[in-house]
């Protein structure tokens, strides 16, 4: 009787899972990350990130109690780091859903070992992003006015024409759907943990897995649901950054008022999202030694996507300039010349070198598969993408139509510490995730490995006769 392990398609083995583990081994590898005793290093790490999150808390408290004036924002630069950070985090939040949804629809098997991880990243990034639209308002305690809550006293509703209200809908929908998607994926794996758990944790995992037992009746609904969610998330993920880009595209400010923004923003989002996945994955796979599950192949694929999207972004920059010149609109022309050669030239050129030039190295397989290098580039790209948003927001605002009102934005320490703090929050959530939840979608990996095996088996039998 042939054992699963003995006959696996060489490709499968070579490609996506190395060292042909049995189903049991797969379970073991992933589960033990959660079950093993907590290392001190983890406590130290979360201690650090936790205190950084504390800084975030303090900064926000100071902001709310004192006013937006503690930031560098001014007339005419009404938005600066606040919205920059918002778009930055939202952008990062795009890789997860993209991997889990779009690659799923395209039957990209290699997604399975990284999608859980990426989805988690999405959630935490969106959580960080959500902070800014709320706290950038002058009176955050009134921010609920942006939601269509029926009210008997004022008869007032949000202005549904405002891109900011679109944002509220888009981002909250995106956060909700991603969370659901993520949880649905988790249920079978939580069941696995439940059934392996010895101590009290079995009750927790038991409750969270809702009594999942992998019945065929469950699986068929489950697969239907998963497919539908993927189908929904795909347009959703595209819509979110499209709508975020409307914040600018729907305005009349030269440099913002551009039809190119939606695709350009989406590409940028995927770009930065994958960069962030690489950054984190490179560390995680090494720390939790799952290199045989998250193989170099996965990383290389992500590098390819970065190369593609990075090039798209570069193309978008070029197009902007061309259109500005071609439109013959003097305000438009000025803004772009000012971007490149005005007071913020340094921001513009760091953006270009980080986003357009650095990913080009990935044309070479050697570099694509060089882990330290891709780690370095992924960080460079994230920096570059932050600059992109800053350049779009600040340079367009600081010199618009009336030279009399031109100004200049300088960030304050509060600006910086707030942004810094969001990384603390992001990483804290991440540490909690890798500690208590399976960071790889075991059941999906099993499914992939096994189904491949089955096909090969049939194949083999067919050959026999």
């Amino acid at each position: 009787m042939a054992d699963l392990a003995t006959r696996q398609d060489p490709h499968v083995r070579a490609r996506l899972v190395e060292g042909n583990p049995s189903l049991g081994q797969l379970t073991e590898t992933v589960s033990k990350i959660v079950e093993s005793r907590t290392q001190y290093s983890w406590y130290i790490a979360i201690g650090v990130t936790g205190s950084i999150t504390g800084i975030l808390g303090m900064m926000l408290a100071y902001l709310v109690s004192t006013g937006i004036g503690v930031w560098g924002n001014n007339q005419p630069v009404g938005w600066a780091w606040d919205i920059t950070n918002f778009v930055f985090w939202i952008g990062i939040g795009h890789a997860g859903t993209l991997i889990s949804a779009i690659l799923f629809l395209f039957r990209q098997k290699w997604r399975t070992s990284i999608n859980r991880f990426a989805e988690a990243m999405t959630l935490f990034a969106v959580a960080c992003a959500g902070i800014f639209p709320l706290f950038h308002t002058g009176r955050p305690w009134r921010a609920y006015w942006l939601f269509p809550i029926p009210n008997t006293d004022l008869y007032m509703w949000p202005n549904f024409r405002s891109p900011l209200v679109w944002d509220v809908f888009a981002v909250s929908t995106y956060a909700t759907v991603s969370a659901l998607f993520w949880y649905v994926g988790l249920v079978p794996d939580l069941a696995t943990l439940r059934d392996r758990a010895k101590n009290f944790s079995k009750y927790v995992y038991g409750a969270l897995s809702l009594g999942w037992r992998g019945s065929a009746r469950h699986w068929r609904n489950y697969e239907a649901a998963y497919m539908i969610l993927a189908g929904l998330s795909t347009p959703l993920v595209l819509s979110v950054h499209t709508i975020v880009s409307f914040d600018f595209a729907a305005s009349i400010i030269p440099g913002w008022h551009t039809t190119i923004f939606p695709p350009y923003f989406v590409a940028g989002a995927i770009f930065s999202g994958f960069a962030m996945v690489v950054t984190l994955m490179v560390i995680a796979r090494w720390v939790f030694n799952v290199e045989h599950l998250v193989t170099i192949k996965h990383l290389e694929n992500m590098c390819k996507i970065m190369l593609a999207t990075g090039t798209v972004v570069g193309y978008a920059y070029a197009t902007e300039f061309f259109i500005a010149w071609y439109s013959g609109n003097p305000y438009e022309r000025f803004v772009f010349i000012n971007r490149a050669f005005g007071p913020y030239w340094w921001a513009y050129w760091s953006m270009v070198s980080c986003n357009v030039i650095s990913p080009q190295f990935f044309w070479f397989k050697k570099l694509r598969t060089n882990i330290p290098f891709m780690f370095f580039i992924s960080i460079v790209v994230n920096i570059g993408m932050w600059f992109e948003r800053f350049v779009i927001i600040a340079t367009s605002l600081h010199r618009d139509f009336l030279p009399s009102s031109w100004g200049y934005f300088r960030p304050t320490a509060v600006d910086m510490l707030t942004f810094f703090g969001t990384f603390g929050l992001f990483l804290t959530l991440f540490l909690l995730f890798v500690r208590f939840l399976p960071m790889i979608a075991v059941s999906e990996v099993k499914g992939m490995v096994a189904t491949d095996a089955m096909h090969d088996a049939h194949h083999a039998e067919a050959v026999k006769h």
Partner: protein
Amino acid sequence: MALIFPKSTDKYVKIGGGVVALLVLGGISAYAYFTLPQVMDTGYSPQQPVAYSHKIHAGNLGMDCYYCHNTVYKAAYSAIPPTETCMNCHVRVKPQSERLLKVRESYASGESIPWVKIHRLPDYVYFNHSAHINAGVSCVTCHGRIDQMVEVKQFAPLNMGWCLDCHRNPAPNLRPVELVTKLSWTPDRDPAEIGREIIAAKHINPPTNCSGCHR
């Protein structure tokens, strides 16, 4: 292996879930109800320093509102009468009454009587009595049958939505100006019809845009 959850668990889960759902729904509806302006604001009736009865003065004695609140026709504010106004009569009427002690003291000392404000709008709302009175909006529309109140209490919620209801459809609340302070007046025909005539005659066109009330 031993079961994690006994068979009975699901029963409790269902019951628990139901209870939670009910609590949430109940909570929301309770909050919604108790924050209704009609519930929160109407009926506010604080203790006044002097037990002045509008029922006696405006009701039984039939004094016109305008006698004391004499600026409503020409000013934004409806003036609270100076102590002098009370003393005009009360030097002769009930000059010794205990209940009027504070009034006499005030008149003697020059210290104002600290009346407690009842009908209160936020300070970013600019309500103008004269505009409404001269259009033919009666006191009763916003203040109710003051002439039947021993202790005045807030009659209307006075929230923005409530204002808007009338600004959008003023007709039912309009009457000839001379009848504005006749709180007991009952129209002999459909008030809306009367209202429409007044609107036509005076070109009444209440604002529903922000700067109508917020400046």
